[in-house]
Each structure stands twice: as C-alpha cells, then as structure tokens.
C-alpha cells in the first residue's frame, strides 16, 4: 500500500507491503533518514521518538498506515532554515551526548514537551521525559532542557 505524508516539510510517499509495519522502518529504510534510531523495538526506550502532528510518538510502535496525511518531524527536520532548534543548541552547549545513539529521541521528546510545558520543573522533566540513555547522560540532559526552555523564551 502507498502511504503519503509530509515529513520535515516535504510531501513524501512510501510503499509498504504491510500497513502495520512500523513507521520507523519507512523513515529509515524507505526515506533514508537515519537520524531516528531503533533501540528496543517495543516502545520502551524512546530512541525512535518522532513528532506526528507535533506530538511525541514512538515510531517503532506506530503503524505506517496511520501516517497518511500527517505532519511528521524527525530529528533531521528539527532545525529550521539552517538554524539549530533551541533544544539542539542547548544540547550542544551542555555537551550532552556521550555515545549519542539515544539522543535524537531525547531531543524530539524534549522539543515536544517544551511546546506543552514551556518552563518545565525538574519533576516535569522526570515525569515527561522517560526515554532511556545507557550512558546515563540524564544530569546533563536536565541542564540542557532548562537551557532550551530559557533559549525558547529569549527567542519568543
């Protein structure tokens, strides 16, 4: 079946033999956007987090057929017009990543959270960002999330 959607501002179509196959596969293998990672494959770790119509979604557990007509954003589309998204800027300034594998998922989850909670407390961060980082960069991520919130409010 053919599934069409907008991804990172561009209209794209993918052909999948099974509409229930994970959107993550279509993104990585069909559209060759490798920034979104496969972690656990059971919607637990969050490495595959993307935005569907602005909401954080675990793409390993999101059927491709549900993407029809939706606005999809991956880590490749987080920056706009070559300018880093405040979350990316903060991640860079706080030197968050260690191995880096899980970080796109964390950044996408954070960007979605900041839309809902522009100035998150530590509790908000603990409750809403529940991805998994094997390098345990959580402390630096917390600092970066607060910094991203500050950058966001400066920009607005």
């Amino acid at each position: 079946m053919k599934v069409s959607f907008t991804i990172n501002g561009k209209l794209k179509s993918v052909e999948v033999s099974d509409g229930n196959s994970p959107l993550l596969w279509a993104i990585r293998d069909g559209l060759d956007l490798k920034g979104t990672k496969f972690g656990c494959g059971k919607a637990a770790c969050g490495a595959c987090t993307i935005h569907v119509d602005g909401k954080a979604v675990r793409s390993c557990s999101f059927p491709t057929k549900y993407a029809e007509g939706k606005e999809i954003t991956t880590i490749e589309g987080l920056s706009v017009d070559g300018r880093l998204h405040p979350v990316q800027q903060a991640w860079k300034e706080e030197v968050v990543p260690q191995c880096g594998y899980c970080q796109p998922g964390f950044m996408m989850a954070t960007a979605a959270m900041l839309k809902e909670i522009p100035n998150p407390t530590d509790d908000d961060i603990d409750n809403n960002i529940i991805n998994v980082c094997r390098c345990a960069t959580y402390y630096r991520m917390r600092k970066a999330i607060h910094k991203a919130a500050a950058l966001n409010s400066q920009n607005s």
Partner: protein
Amino acid sequence: MRIKIIYLSISFFIIALTLGFANMDDNSNKKTKEKQAELILDAPFDKVMAVLTHKRCINCHPAGDTPLQGEDSHLHNFDIVRGENDHGLSAYTCNTCHQSENNDYSGVPGAPHWALAPREMVWEGKSRIEIAQQMMDPKRNGGRTHEEIMEHLTEHELVLWAWDPGVDAEGEAREKPPVAKDEFIKAVKEWISDGAIIPSE
C-alpha cells in the same frame, strides 16, 4: 520366608488400595470443582464478574495512579502515571506508545480511547460485589444509567478489546477473559435487564 512374602503382598495391596482411593478422591474433587465452576458460570452476574475481575480489565482499573501491565499485572514500566485526564501527562500521553489497535511488531496493545479508568472506578483489590455496586452507582460511574452501562460493557471498543488483546513484545498471545465475548454480552444484557441485582456473598 513364606511369612515375609505374605506380609509384603499384604503391604503392596494396602498401598495400592490407598493410592487408588486417593486417586478416586482427587478425581471426585476435580469433578465437584468443575461442577461448581459450571454452576457459578451459569448465572449472568457471575459470568459478568468473571470477566470484570480478569487482568485484561483490572490492569486499567488500578488502585493507584499507575497502570498495571502484563499477565502478572505488574506496575507499568517507567512509572507511567494517569495524569489529570487519565490519558497520561501533557507531553507523554498514552498515545505516545499506544495507538488505536494492537501492534504486533512492537507488542504494544492498542484500542480506541486507550486510557486509564478514572480514580472513582478503581477495581483492583475490590470484591466482585464491591465492583458491581460501584459500577452501578451513578455517583461513581460517571452518571451512567443502567442502559448506558449495558452499552458501555457490550459495545465500547476498549472494553471489547479484552477479547482481542494481541501479542506481547515476545510474541506471546495475551490471555483473554474466561468467558467468551458473545456469552459475556448476553450475560450483561440479561443481568441488567433483570434489574442488575447484586447478590450478597
């Protein structure tokens, strides 16, 4: 020597007889239990409650603010919480992972309106009588009439998901409730049409 053989023969006979009786006793108990189960499951109320107290229902009617999951009804991984509207937190909702149908690739279950039952509809740890009283009490059931409860139990996609629970992350089929869907629907209609009488236990 001859006396020893006689003693041994008598001993073997007594042991065999005892084992035989024990086995007969087991069989008889089993049959009685099966008979009791048949009798219990014959009443519409009992059929309804056998389903509502099953893990497929209880996991989303937990006593706390965290859903239960799995065949052992453990607390949902990652400290997932109900949030203000029972759909999770503002930036991390149930739909971050659960969609409107089961996902056999990830083993994540899904159905329309995936959410926790409200706090006033906690079933975990309650007896079937308490659950029934609570379910039929408009103050604790969201103001629903008997007819609306009947409709909810027999038509709501999230309730009926219990008979199509999909597979877990290991590809193992989730357990279904102990009463077949059609039988449950029939029992709900009979029980409520007959006045939704809650027996005393």
